């Protein structure tokens, strides 16, 4: 089985090469909806990390017991359990952030990233790679959300984590706090990532060509 693959590889692929938001375009609803400030984005990232890691571990442990016909239902029940725990914990620890995030905490249940990882990875691998995959994916997700949230908060409120950056005279870009700002920022970041990927692929192709030519010569 693929568990022979190095665990390290499973961990880092989610950060960049298979980043859930920028490359796989999964989980875009929370990525657009709750990233109007860096702290909200990080809270969402943390809650998603908890749910994804917990349910991946559980699904991976139970994978031989889950009948194939009802696996999606089982995944959803497992995820929903962890979401409920995350919901109550956040409500107890950070009621202000919980209120800001509103329904989107409960909506982690239907986050396609989490269900996708259960179906594509956790239900087919042992705990160790499943844990590494879940950690990598959720860190990549949190990183993407933080990037979006930071850009939108800096331009939309002139602050980062609530700390004012430009002084009281800053003119906030109201649009960046609103939904269009989320779409514009996400589109720009997707463009940057696609450009970067293309650039690197072209560079590696060029390098392969060069070595080929050298060998031929």
């Amino acid at each position, binding site marked *: 089985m693929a568990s022979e693959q190095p665990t390290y590889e499973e961990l880092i692929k989610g950060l960049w090469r298979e980043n859930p938001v920028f490359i796989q375009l999964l989980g875009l609803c929370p990525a657009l909806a709750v990233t109007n400030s860096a702290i909200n984005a990080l809270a969402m990232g943390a809650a998603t990390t908890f749910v994804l890691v917990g349910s991946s571990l559980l699904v991976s442990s139970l994978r031989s017991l889950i009948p194939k016909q009802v696996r999606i239902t089982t995944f959803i029940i497992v995820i929903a359990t962890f979401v409920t725990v995350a919901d109550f914990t956040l409500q107890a620890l950070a009621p202000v952030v919980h209120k800001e995030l509103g329904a989107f905490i409960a909506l982690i249940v239907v986050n396609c990233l989490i269900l996708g990882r259960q179906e594509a990875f956790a239900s087919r691998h042992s705990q160790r790679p499943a844990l590494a995959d879940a950690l990598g994916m959720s860190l990549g997700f949190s990183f993407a959300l933080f990037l979006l949230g930071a850009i939108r908060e800096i331009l939309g409120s002139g602050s980062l984590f609530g700390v004012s950056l430009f002084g009281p005279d800053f003119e906030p870009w*109201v649009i960046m706090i609103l939904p269009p700002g989320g779409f514009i920022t996400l589109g720009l970041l997707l463009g940057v990532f696609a450009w970067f990927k293309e650039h690197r692929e072209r560079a590696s192709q060029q390098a392969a060509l060069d070595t080929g030519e050298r060998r031929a010569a």
Partner: protein
Amino acid sequence: MWSVVASLAPVVGASIWFFGPSALLVLIASCAGAICTERGIAGTRALRDGSGTITGLLLGLTLPPGIPLWMAFLGGAFGMAFGKLVFGGLGQNVFNPALLGRAFLQAAFPVALTTWPASASSWWSLRGDNFALPLMSPQVPDALTGATPLGLFKFEGQGTDLGSLLVGSTGGSLGETCGLIILLGGAYLALRGHLNWRIPASIFASVALLAGLLHLIDAEQYPGPVFMLFSGGLMLGAVYMATDMVTSPVSGLGCWVFGAGIGALVVIIRIWGGLPEGVMYSILLMNALVPFINRVTQPRVFGTNLGSSAS
């Protein structure tokens, strides 16, 4: 495209006449934003057709004279990058780049975009805090702000006399005050064949018709058609923005539908909407419908469909 720039010269001149050095500065800033962005992303070649200059000028003409220059620059850069270049450059864009830049500025800085200067003490004085530092808000004393004719009508129920509307000695954005000069520029372009006269004609007709009907029903509540035609950005929008060749329909019938839709939306937004002015949103909304209008009004190709007419 440079002849469009030439036909805008009188409008630019009028805006400088009415709003002083502020107008010139804002126009330079918005043009610089559009041109620098086009130069930076698409290269010098893209500048030769003059469409970047038109985008910058048209955007500048829709801005209030007191706007900080960095906002005008940002609007030009945003309109050029997101309105035109991301679609693949000239001829590919769905929305009018100048209006997209303005829509962005309106959504990002609603206060600065609706602060109109009161009549200035002298021609040389700035009409607002043009030189606010980048990212900083302008400092405008309340005593220096005025209102546009549409704002006066909508929020204070106060009319403006026709003479000053025609000549343009009212408050408002740079290029939206002088209706007569814009009409002259439009007539020149229509005669040269640079714009499709059907679009402004249908916009004027539908606005006049709808506003006239409403005015007949209740003259107290609804303004007359002439006021509707010559106030706000309707003239500038109808003559220079709706007629953008890239973002308007291809067929003659399509142009009539397009213009009538814009006119109807303008009247609806102005009278029942929350905003005093709706030309920008009307044109952008109808821009989005242009592909469908083109498909519906596609003329029959010669020599086809003969069988159906025979049977």
